[in-house]
């Protein structure tokens, strides 16, 4: 793969430095003013929350047994859901980006639906699919698998809402990468699976990575579908967002402290995803 991706990454860095020197950057001042308002709109509520944190109690609040259990469960289920998103999402993105068949646009619309659907609607849909009285629920229960009120229900809910993030990122990356190198590999006698493994996937690895990170972040924040479909029990289905929602009823300090933890994890995760696309092409080149 070195001969394939090395020239590409060189070309990219070259064009970027070039662009930085000569590009026209005359942004009108009023755009800056509006941009500042936009940034404030996002940052101010976060700051307001930080101000409300009871710092004296912060550590005891976030290290309470129920908080740690919820955080642990959130991280474990989100990791499992992200793996499931990759397993199901990579083939979907490949089919949507490379193949052409009737109903493709419709398929894309439906795959992306969870992006715009209120999560609670997703939860209801999952309930009527995998629930005990659901479409598949009865046969699954006959097979001895209980999904209702189990951690697997949380993973299903998270995968449902996070899958489009991976598919969108990866499909975009695949389209940007184009089919040139794949065609060359094919003319050199590589079979489709070899082309996929040696050319396509390595080329879009940054897109795959950022898609996976975004999916993970979406899983961490999942609330509505989980509440509707999986229920809420400490250590089994009560993830961090559900714990925050419950704590809010009685202990506002605990809810704010846990919210801050979730914000910190989300910032770390999203920060990671926006560094990756720039860092990876050179890595891929040196491999």
């Amino acid at each position, binding site marked *: 793969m070195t001969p394939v991706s090395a020239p590409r990454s060189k070309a990219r860095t070259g064009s970027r430095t070039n662009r930085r020197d000569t590009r026209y950057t005359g942004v009108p001042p009023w755009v800056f003013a509006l941009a500042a308002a936009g940034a404030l709109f996002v940052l101010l509520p976060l700051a307001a929350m930080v101000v409300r944190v009871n710092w004296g109690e912060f550590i005891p609040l976030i290290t309470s047994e129920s908080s740690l259990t919820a955080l642990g469960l959130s991280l474990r289920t989100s990791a499992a859901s992200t793996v499931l998103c990759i397993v199901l999402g990579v083939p979907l993105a490949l089919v949507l980006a490379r193949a052409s068949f009737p109903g493709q646009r419709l398929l894309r619309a439906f795959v992306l639906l969870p992006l715009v659907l209120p999560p609670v609607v997703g939860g209801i849909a999952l309930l009527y699919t995998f629930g*005990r*009285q659901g479409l598949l629920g009865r046969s699954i229960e006959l097979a001895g698998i209980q999904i*209702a009120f189990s951690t697997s229900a949380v993973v299903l809910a998270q995968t449902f809402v996070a899958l489009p993030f991976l598919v969108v990122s990866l499909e975009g990356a695949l389209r940007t990468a184009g089919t040139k190198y794949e065609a060359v590999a094919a003319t050199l006698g590589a079979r489709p699976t070899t082309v996929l493994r040696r050319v396509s996937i390595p080329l879009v690895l940054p897109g795959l990575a950022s898609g996976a990170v975004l999916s993970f972040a979406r899983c961490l924040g999942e609330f509505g579908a989980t*509440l*509707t479909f999986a*229920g809420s*029990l400490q250590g089994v289905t009560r993830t961090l967002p559900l714990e925050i929602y419950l*704590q809010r009823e009685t202990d506002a300090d605990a809810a704010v402290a846990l919210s801050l933890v979730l914000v910190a994890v989300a910032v770390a995760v999203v920060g990671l995803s926006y560094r990756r696309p720039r860092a990876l092409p050179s890595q891929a080149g040196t491999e």
Partner: protein
Amino acid sequence: MSTIRVPVGALLAAGVLAAGLAGCAASSTAAGTTRSGSSTAAGTGTVTVFAAASLKSTFTKIASGFEAANPGTKVTLNFAGSSDLVTQVTQGAPADVIASADTTNMAKLSDAKLIDGTPSKFATNTLEIAVPPGNPASISSFADLAKPGVKVVVCAPQVPCGSATETVEQAAGTTLKPVSEESSVTDVLGKVSSGEADAGLVYVTDVKTAGDKVKGIPFSESDQAVNTYPIATVGSSKSKELAKAFIAMVTGSEGRKVLSDAGFGTP
């Protein structure tokens, strides 16, 4: 937060329709108001009522009766969980009347001196077992909920219906092992009506509202945890006369009729 604005025109039409259907249960609100004419003379304007989610259907009925009895007035209703309502009022939301589903949440407002006087208790509610139609796990008593393999869903102890559940458990000497502790009674009801759970503990009024989607099983220990609903005028209200008139209607005979029809008890 869900604010329900009830258009006056539609309500008038509903009132006329209700009055026309003599003998129908719904007519009692509108007709009763006209007959007594007691709580009126409060003037015109808007009264904003914050009420617990479990009061949705009853307060909507009472509000239309109030508007019919006081031409020129408008009732704006906002329904949410009691703790949400308390938070909203504490943060300065423009409410004239607040009705909570438990005394604990109302006490937070009393302690902060955000309401006028002592709240009036206007309704009570008790727990009932709700099972899906057909009662698949054959539940007939509170003790049955602890049978192995029965999937029971309850409210989390942090919310009023959950603390009532804990009290009942102690009174009955039965410890439940719920498969889920939901943060609202509606979520418990949803898990039962969809057949996900074999049984859930909800309020009597919830079972009544759910109609034939669930079956209610009363149990004797439920009287150990009676939830009392208080109502009060918000201190910062700018239309206190209307607020008092509305509270008078809720606590008066008309309000009581609507509430008891929905399954609420008398405090």
